[in-house]
C-alpha cells in the first residue's frame, strides 16, 4: 500500500490517498471507489477484489483506490466535508488549487492506466441493480460486457463532463467505465459482491488474473430506448412492490403512490414491457415527476 498524496488537515491528522498495486507491466487497470464518501458498496467491492488479488500473480498491473474521500466517508457525506465540494467535479484537478482540486489532480495522475474504472453506489434515495455504464460501442463496450454485471447500459453522453473523473480519463485517451450498484449511505453486501465479481471477471477477460471468473449473466444489455423510466404522476409516499433484479411483464404492479397523511392510494405504477427492474426509488417521500422505477428490457 502506498500513499500517493497527503495533506495536513486542521484539527485532525492528515488526509492520505491510498493506492494498492498488484503486478507490473501491461495491461494496466486502475479501479477507484469512494470518490463520494457515502457510497459504500463500491468501497466494499474494491476491498473484496483486493482480497482476491492478494492470492494472485497478476499478468499486468492493477491499481486499487478503495476509498478516496475518507473524510466524507467518516461523516457519511457525498462531498468533501470541509468546503462541501464534489471531488468528482474537480477533475483533472490542479496541484496548486484548492484541497479538492489537489486530491483530484493526485488521483488523476496516479490512475495513469490503459483502463480506468470508477465504482459508485446509487444516490442515497435510489437503489440500483449493479450495472456498468458504457459508451455505445467500441472496445469499452466490449470490456463492459466482459464484466457480466446484471445490466450493461450503453449511454451516448455518459459522464462526459470534463470536470468528472470519467470525462477526464476519456479526454486523456484512457478507456473508462462507470460501475454503479446498490444505494448510498447503506452497505448492500449482495450488490457489492456482484460488483466485485464483475471487476474480477474483467481482470480475467484481460488476462491479468486467472481463476476468478464468476458464473454471472447479464440480464439487460440496453440503450436508453430500451429502458422505461417510470416517473411519479404526483407527489406523495411511494411504496415499491418489486425489488431490483426482479423480472417483470407488462401490467406487473411495480409500486404505488399514496398520500403521506392518511395513506389514500393516489396512483399505481405498472410495467409497460418485459424486463428486469434496474432502479427503484428507496426513499419514499417523492416529488411529482421524480424517477420511481427503471425497467430494462430483457431479450
Amino acid at each position, binding site marked *: 500500500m502506498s500513499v500517493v498524496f497527503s*495533506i495536513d488537515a486542521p484539527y485532525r491528522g492528515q488526509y492520505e490517498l491510498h493506492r494498492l498495486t498488484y503486478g507490473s507491466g501491461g495491461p494496466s487497470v486502475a479501479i477507484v471507489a469512494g470518490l463520494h464518501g457515502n457510497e459504500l458498496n463500491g468501497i466494499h467491492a474494491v476491498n473484496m477484489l483486493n482480497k482476491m488479488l492478494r492470492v494472485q500473480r497478476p499478468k499486468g498491473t492493477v491499481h486499487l483506490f478503495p476509498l478516496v474521500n475518507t473524510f466524507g466517508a467518516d461523516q457519511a457525506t457525498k462531498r468533501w466535508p470541509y*468546503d462541501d465540494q464534489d471531488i468528482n467535479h474537480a477533475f483533472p484537478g490542479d496541484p496548486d488549487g484548492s484541497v479538492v482540486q489537489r486530491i483530484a489532480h493526485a488521483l488523476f495522475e496516479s490512475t495513469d492506466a490503459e483502463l480506468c474504472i470508477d465504482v459508485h453506489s446509487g444516490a442515497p434515495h435510489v437503489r440500483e441493480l449493479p450495472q456498468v455504464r458504457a459508451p455505445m460501442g467500441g472496445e469499452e463496450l466490449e470490456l463492459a460486457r466482459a464484466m457480466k454485471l446484471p445490466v450493461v447500459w450503453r449511454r451516448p453522453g455518459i459522464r462526459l*463532463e470534463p*470536470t468528472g473523473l470519467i470525462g477526464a480519463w476519456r479526454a486523456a485517451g484512457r478507456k473508462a467505465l462507470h460501475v454503479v450498484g446498490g444505494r448510498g449511505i447503506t452497505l448492500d453486501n449482495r450488490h457489492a459482491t456482484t460488483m466485485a465479481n464483475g471487476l474480477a471477471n474483467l481482470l480475467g477477460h484481460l488476462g491479468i488474473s486467472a481463476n476468478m471468473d464468476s458464473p454471472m449473466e447479464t440480464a439487460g444489455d440496453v440503450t436508453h430506448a430500451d429502458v422505461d423510466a417510470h416517473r411519479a404522476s404526483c*407527489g406523495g409516499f411511494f411504496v415499491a412492490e418489486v425489488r431490483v433484479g426482479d423480472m417483470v411483464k407488462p401490467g406487473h404492479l411495480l409500486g404505488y403512490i399514496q*398520500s403521506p*397523511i392518511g395513506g389514500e392510494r393516489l396512483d399505481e405504477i405498472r410495467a409497460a414491457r418485459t424486463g428486469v427492474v434496474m432502479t427503484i426509488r428507496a426513499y419514499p417521500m417523492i*416529488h411529482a*415527476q421524480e424517477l420511481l422505477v427503471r425497467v430494462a428490457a430483457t431479450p
Partner: protein
Amino acid sequence: MTAVIQVELPSGDELAIIRRRFGRGGPGVPRVAIVAGIRGDAPEGIRVAHQVARALEAIEDRLTGVVDVYPCANPLGAHQGTRVWPFFDVDLNRRFPGKESGHQPDRVAHALYSDIRGAVQVIELRGAREAFSEVIHAQVRERDTAAAEFAMGANVALVWARKPGPAATQTFAHQFPGTIVLEGGTGNRLNAEVGKDLEEGVIHLLSQVGVLAEKDLPFHWAAMSRPVVVNDAQVFRVRAERSGLFLPEFTVWSEVEKGATLGHVIDPEDGAVMETILSPTTGRVMAVREHPVVYSGTMVARVVTL
C-alpha cells in the same frame, strides 16, 4: 405577483417561484429581468431584489418598459440557508437551461429560463461566496465589452470581465448573453450598506437600458461609484500553503503593497504561527476569507491590481 412555476412537495406543501412585474408590456417594449436567490445562501441578493421591487412600486407609472423581478429562485434553499436545492442536493446554478420533465430543480430552471428568454437585459443578484467577504462588484463575461461598459453604471467598485469556467455553460448567467452578475457583502449574511449600494446600482442600470428615464431616478446618478474594469490577469487568488487557522490582517478593499502581510496561518492546537501570507501584488483586497479553517490550497483572499 405571478408564480412562474408551482411545485408540490411530497408532504403536500407547495413552493412557488414568484415573479413581480412592473410596467406594461407590449410589442417592442423592452423587458429587463432581475433574478436573485439562485443559491439559498445569498440573502443579500434576495434583499436587494425586494428593495428594488419596492422602489419600482413607487415609480411604476414612469417606467417605459417592463421590469420583472424574481426575488428568489431557490426558496427551499433560502429557507434553510443552503447553497444547493435541498433533498436533490444540486446547485441550481449548474442546471440551466433546465428540463421541462426533469426533477424539481431542473423544472424550476427550465421555467425560469423560458420565462426570462427574450429580455433585453438580465441582472443576477448574489451575495458573497460562503465564508468570504467581498467588495461590491459586477461580473461579466470576458470580451463582452458591451456588458462591461453597461456594468460601469452598477454602482460597484469593480467590474470583473471573467473567463468562463469549465461548468459555465450550465450556469444561469451563461444562458443570456450580456448578463450582469452583482455580488458583494458577506456569505449568508446581510449588510445594510451593501444592500443600499446594490439597490441603487440596479435602479441606475434600468435607466441605462431604457426602461426608466434618468430624470426619474429616485436619487442623483452623479452619486454613483465609478468602477474600473479588470480581467482575470489582474485578479490574484491568494492561497494558504499550510493547513491551520487563517487570521487576516486586512479588510476588504484596503490598499496593499506587494509583499505586505495579508495574514497568518496558525497551528489550531498551540497557536504557533506556521505561515505568513504576503500580498502577491500591489493593489486592493477584493475578498477576504472570514472562516478561519484552511487547508493547503484554500483561497484566503483575492487581490486585484488596478
